């Protein structure tokens, strides 16, 4: 695995967008619920940012699910 590859891809997948659609929440509403900016939600959904443990827990809490149901470790090599 090259340095460039590591830089580009966080190795966590998420289905945040799906969960949001199921619960009928906009990015703005979700952001307000967990006191972050809308940009953060967008960055997480686009796979550009992996949230901290605390934030992941808060997100899972909003949907009443376990963290692993929303954030999944990508299998590498």
């Amino acid at each position, binding site marked *: 695995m090259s340095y460039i590859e590591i830089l580009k891809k966080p190795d966590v997948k998420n289905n945040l967008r799906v969960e949001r659609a199921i619960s009928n929440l906009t990015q703005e509403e979700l952001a307000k619920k967990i006191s972050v*900016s809308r*940009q953060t939600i967008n960055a997480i959904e686009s796979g550009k940012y992996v949230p901290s443990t605390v934030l992941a827990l808060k997100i899972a809490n909003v949907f009443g699910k376990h963290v692993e149901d929303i954030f999944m470790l990508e299998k590498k090599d």
Partner: protein
Amino acid sequence: MLYIHQNFYFMQNKLLLPHKWKRIGWIILIPSFVFGLYLIIFGIENVHLNARTFAILDIEILKDTKIFSFISTNISATIAGSLFITGSLLVGFSKEKVEDEFISNLRLTSLLWAVLVNYILLLFAFLFIYGLPFFDVMVYNCFTILIFFIVRFNYVLYRNFKKAGREK
């Protein structure tokens, strides 16, 4: 119980200025940037802003060295430079409207990026630019780290903001 990641992000809370200073920073930064460009294009000697000012050290060609005294000199570069630095510090080191971990992370990453890019360019300049132009390089180098940081940070935010705007 405070988590380690929250400590890192509370530390930024302590080091950064309140959000209102960002706007003040831009108000200082943009005119001083324009003024600085003007000085570069038209030359400092051609802008006659002379005043008496206090100098800790002043060594000029064909004049006595002055230490801790008042001197009469062209302060256009002084004004442009100090205002630009002050403005960029205010812009770069004040909080966003909503501070969260993503913004904190982005701020640190942008600083890293800016320092790296700045020094790669500077290394290039050391290796390939000689003589009088090198002095110009040294002068610009005073400001480029802050410029790169502010540009990088705001560019990523803007790009994200645009993307968020298209989503629901």
